[in-house]
Structures are given as C-alpha cells and as structure tokens.
C-alpha cells in the first residue's frame, strides 16, 4: 500500500521577509544573569538597544525587498563566471599565439575569484537560500577551491561570524599562524610573522583548507583522531577532484601543450590566492580594528553583538567592479552586521550604516586597498617583535576592562 501526498496547500507569500540565517549573540553557560560589558566604554545599555532597533529595521527593510532583481543579479554573476571559465580553459589550447596563454590565465583567475568570493562565499552564507534553487543553496553549494564547503561553513559561518574577534573562540584571529593582535601572547616564532604571512599569500587555498581541518582540536584533546577524521571525511576527495581537474585532465586534453596548460592553471590558482589573501587580511586585521574577550561578550544583547561586528571589521573603498571582485567583502562591516543578506545590498546600505556609526560614535574603519594592506603589513612587522614590557603587563582587553571599572 502506498501513501503519497500529492498536493500541498498554502505556501508563504512570495517574499524573503522570513529569511533568517544570522548568527545569535553569545550566551554564558555558567552565569546566565551577568550582563555583557562589550561596548559600555562607548554607549549605555539603552543606547545599545536603540542601535539594535535601528540596524534591525534596515535589515528587515532589505529582506522585505528581496526578489527578482537579487535573483537576476547572482545569476548574472554566475553567467559571467561560467563564461570566463570556459574562455580560460579554451585559450589554453592556443599557447602558440603569445597573448592567448596570458589571456587564458587572466580569464581563469577572474573565474576562480568570482566563484570563490562573490558567488561561493556569499551563497554559502545562505544569502540566496530564499530562492530555493539547489544550485544557489548554502547546503549544496561547492566551490572551486581545494577546501570543501562543509569545513569552511563550520569555521567561518559559525565560529568566525558568531565569535567575531573574540580571543580563544574566533580562530580567524591570525589564522593560528601569525600574530596580528596585541592580545595574542608573543612567541619567538612570530619573529617570522611577515615571512609567514607572505608565504601564506601564495598557498592561501591550502592554508584555508588546513585551517578548516581544525587539527588543533586534536592537540587540545577536544576531539579524538577518529572524530577529526570523520569531520573531514570529504576533504581528500575534494582535493583530488580539484588537483585532477587543474593539473591532469585539462593539461592532458591540450595534448602537446600539457605543460603550458598546467602552468596556466597553476598561475590562475596563485593569482586567486594572492587576491583572496589580501582582501581577507584587510577585513579584520588593519590597525584600530578591535578584539574582545569572551567574558566581556557573554550574554551580550543584540546591540552589543552589532557593535562588536562594526568595531571588529574594516572596509576597503573602491569601484563597483572592485567590490564585486572582493565578493563585496570590501563591505566587511555591512557583511558582518548582516551576513545572510545578498552582498549586492551592502553598497546600497553602506551610507546609512556609516551615518549610524557616526551618530553613535563608533569607528567606521575604511580606506583604500593600499592603505589597509599597508596597515596590516605594519602590524605584521611590529607585532612580530617581542612586546615592550609595560604593554605586555596589561593586554588591551584587560586595559579596557580597567577603564570601565574606573
């Protein structure tokens, strides 16, 4: 006997108003009564609540407005990316025409950049889940990079976006490789800070993959080897697929040009690595971006969570095309406030966010790519050196708490 439901009645109204993939504020498991102190050096609890009301209103207004235009936009980006990829692969067949190889590398690099940033990063945040299109769904999307989507969604969407810039919780502070914040304890290995960062830039996709494996959970005893293996079951398969595609199949297809195609594909991956590294290091590491202690953020209100996102992020100014190529991570502040809203909306709401920040006296950290990279580089150099004695005695987070108590 069979029972199958054949028709379903009422569906939701055709809007994305109910779309909600945003992170929740932190809750303390041991002390549910204590109120978080984040932001009290600048605003009162009442002001923080007002800030939350204003930002929630912007969020709801954008959600209510999502529709055909947003769907058309992301599909247009996908179309351009697909075209660039096909062009890039095809041009590798013509390395005997001098500019063809270079044009192929450029096409393929742009394709990978769009795929990873404006498409992959944003789709995997659930920005387009409301479309109910399996090809643009956060659960199903896989990107053109060696690290599988699943591991990245865990460390990025959950850990980084929930615990943004909280020491001990946000593994993105220095990526467990470099010292980028003065509250990270200094170690002689950080003398190599600039070298490590420079090296990471070229192999960034492999760095991201390793970072997402979270092998440190093995070291800390948080997980057993079996658990680590089970959690990362898809990684080897993903690596194999990526490597076989770029370094075996496509080179083989071009026959006598095997080596030139291999070099072209390798170059495209490196270009993407350099670009992604620079954009991402500018997101949270420029000077004046703040970090927080877990204690100060526990039981935070929505307003405090919002404040933490603003103060913990930095924007990059640039042209429209530049913003698209950064996956609109150049609007890191807007992205961290509303990580599940389609990225094309960030530039639209940026002036309003900036005005609100000005009104509440919150630093809206922005600057050109050159300025922000310079700022990050300077920190990499200075923080690699052993801290001066007086600074080491009172880390920044403790200093802020002292100010409050005073």
């Amino acid at each position, binding site marked *: 006997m069979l029972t199958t439901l054949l028709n379903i009645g009422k*569906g939701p109204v055709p809007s994305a108003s109910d779309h909600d993939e945003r992170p*929740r504020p932190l809750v303390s498991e041991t002390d549910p009564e204590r109120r978080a102190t984040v932001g009290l050096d600048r605003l009162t609890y009442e002001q923080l609540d007002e800030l939350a009301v204003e930002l929630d209103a912007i969020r709801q207004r954008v959600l209510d407005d999502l529709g055909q235009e947003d769907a058309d936009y992301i599909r247009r980006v996908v179309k351009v990316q697909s075209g660039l990829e096909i062009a890039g692969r095809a041009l590798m067949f013509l390395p005997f025409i001098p500019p063809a190889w270079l044009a192929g590398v450029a096409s393929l690099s742009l394709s990978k950049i769009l795929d990873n940033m404006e498409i992959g990063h944003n789709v995997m945040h659930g920005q387009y889940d409301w479309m109910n299109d399996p090809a643009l769904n956060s*659960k199903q999307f896989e990107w*053109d990079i060696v690290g599988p989507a699943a591991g990245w969604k865990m460390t990025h969407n959950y850990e980084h976006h929930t615990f943004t810039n909280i020491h001990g919780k946000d593994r993105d502070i220095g990526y467990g490789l470099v010292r980028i914040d003065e509250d990270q304890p200094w170690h002689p290995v950080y003398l190599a800070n600039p070298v490590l960062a420079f090296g990471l830039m070229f192999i960034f996709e492999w760095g991201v993959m390793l970072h997402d494996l979270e092998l440190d959970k093995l070291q800390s005893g948080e997980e057993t080897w079996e658990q680590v293996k089970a959690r990362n079951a898809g990684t080897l398969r993903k690596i194999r697929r990526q490597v076989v595609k770029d370094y075996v199949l*496509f080179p083989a297809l071009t026959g006598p040009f095997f080596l030139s195609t291999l070099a072209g594909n390798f170059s495209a991956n490196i270009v993407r690595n350099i670009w992604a590294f620079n954009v991402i290091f500018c997101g949270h590491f420029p000077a004046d971006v703040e970090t927080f202690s877990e204690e100060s953020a526990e039981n935070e209100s929505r307003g405090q969570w919002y404040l933490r996102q603003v103060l913990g992020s930095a924007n990059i100014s640039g042209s429209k095309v530049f913003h698209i190529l950064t996956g609109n991570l150049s609007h890191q502040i807007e992205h961290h406030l509303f990580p599940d809203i389609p990225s094309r909306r960030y530039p639209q709401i940026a002036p309003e966010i900036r005005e609100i920040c000005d009104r509440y006296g919150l630093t809206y950290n922005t600057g050109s790519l050159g300025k922000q990279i310079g700022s990050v580089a300077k920190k990499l150099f200075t923080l690699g050196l052993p801290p001066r004695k007086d600074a080491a005695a009172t880390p920044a987070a403790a200093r802020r708490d002292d100010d409050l108590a005073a």
Partner: protein
Amino acid sequence: MSTDRRPRRGLARRLLATRLADHLTAPHGVDRFLEQLDPLLTVHQVRGVVSEVVHETGAASTVVLAPNDAWTGFRPGQHVQFGVEVDGKRRVRVFSVSSSTARDDGRFSVTVKAHDDGYVSQYLHREMAPGTVVYLSEAEGEFVLPEEVPGGLLLLSGGSGITPVMSMLLSLRDAGHTRPVTFLHYARSADDEIFRGALDEVVATCPWATVRRVYTREPGAGDLQGRFTTAHLDLLGIDPATTPTWACGPAGLIETVRKTYAEAGAEQMLAVEYFKVPKVDLDAADATGTLSLDSAGLDVPNDGRTILEQAEEAGLTPEFGCRMGICHKCTVKKKHGAVRNVLSGEVRADTDEDIRICINKPVGDVCVAL
C-alpha cells in the same frame, strides 16, 4: 507499462553526460554551464517547457509539458516534482501525470485543481503561459500499473485524485487494452468533474471500459448515489477479493475503501494514493499531527518541540551544530507538511524544501528526510 519516447541523444549530448565531463566541470557539474546557453540544455536535470495550458472543468488546468532529454518517461500513476519561479523564488509541488503514455511527441501533462490557498495551483490556473520553463524531477512513485496489466481491474478515484487513474485509463486505451476495466469516480457535482469530456469520449469509444460517475452533492444525477460504500461495489458486481484495484483520492475516501477491502480480506488487491491538502493551523494549537521520520521509517506524535528535539527523542542522532539556527549543519529536506520557524514565527509549507530542524517545529503532519 512505461514509456520512454525520448529522441536518442547525439554523440555530443552523450559525451556531456559522462563522468569525464563531470570531472572537467567540477565542482559545479556540466549542467551549470549548459544552462547558461539555454535552461533546457541540461543533460542531468529534468526541465520542461510549457507547450499548452488547457482549462478543464471544475477550476482545473491541464499543463502540457515538453520535457528536455533528461526526462526518462513515466509509468501511468506516477507523479513529478513541478517547480516554478516567481519573484526569484522557486516553488516546488508534486503533481500526478494525467496524460497517456502514448503521446508520440514525448510530451506529458499534469492536471491541477486550483485551491483557494494553493499558491502554485492558483498560479498554474491563472498565470502560467506557454513558454514558461518548469523545473521537474524524474517521474516518481510506486502507485503504478504492473508491466502485465491484469483483466477485470477497478480504477477508483475521488475529486482531483482522478489524475493518476485517468493517466492509467488513457494509457490502457492507447496501448490497445481490451480486457474489462471499471472506472469509478466520485466528484461533488458534474460541474466539478475535471475530465468530463475525456471520460465521455472513453465511454463512446471503449466498449471494454465501464465508466461510473457519482456526484456526491447532486442527488439523482450520476450513476450511483451518495458517498462510496460497499454497496456501490455490490451494485457494480465487483468482488474486492478478485479485483485488482487502484484508488486515489482524499483521506476520507481512501480510509473507507481500505476498510472495505480489509473487511473482505482483500488488502493485497488494493493500491492507494492519498490526495490531500494539509491544514495549516496558524493558531497556538501547533502540537497536532504526526512527525514522520522518513528514512528511519518512524512516525511520532507531534509534541510541539522542534523537529531536532523530537527526532532525538525518537532515538535518532541527526547532524547538528549550533542548535540555534546559525550554522546550517542540521538542514534536512522537508518532504511535505507545514513547519513554523520558532525564531521568526513564519510558517512554511513548500514541498521538498530545506529546513533547519533545530529552529522549526511541525504544524500538523510533517514528513522529513531523517
């Protein structure tokens, strides 16, 4: 009975469907590139274009579809997932195929009654135009006629449940079937009967088919009176114990038919398919209905908590992460039914949509792929 009238794929299309093509286009797959040229060019994903919309009697519409060559045909009685995009949002419903397998143009149709609160059915009825691209699935479902069709069978239906058995009847006719078939259909009234014209034609041209129509709200009209009872079978000279029967209709009808066959000890002669519109209860009384955990084959009474909690209570260990709607690790396919987002209070009732089970609770009957 089955059909596969696809034109044979040429060499290029066959190459595109190979694993090599899949590896070359990883991680997105070959369809992602093909659809940039034309959404119907996909080699794996089934899609179709609407070639005709026919308004039937009883506020129903028949949508004729020309599927692309990823479609592998259907067996009469099966259904397809039917996705349309409105305002950038894809809505998927499941409809039975209503046409004969014998169409030589490879097309098939679904026939849908417009429900007042059915967004997609209203859209099909009012707005769907030829040329619209529809996101389909392969034909699915086990409510089908066997390869060897027995004689003396009964096709029984109520309301919109007529669509799969109509496909069976028309397919039998077109396949040259000549052994006796009884077609017993219950509609509210003659005006409400979806395939009146098509059935009249069968009556006129198929001497092997006995068509009996009952109008439950029009006493005196129709061939028999009132709702289905065992007496109706007696009047038609049908013995459940010796009559292979396919029945599709609303829950009430199917339950009565089931009971009749059970009492006659003839359950093995009966195949049924439900047709029903779930009640979306928007009031506080959410904790009604049954939560079906499909993969585990478990049914538990809905106790009003989130699906994740209820599944764990039932002994399952679904994957989860933050348990507060952030990380998407717990997302599973909801096959049907309505759920309420405990954060936003929104109710969603789409078929085959992804939900985060940590922040959704069932509203009435819900089936999830857990």
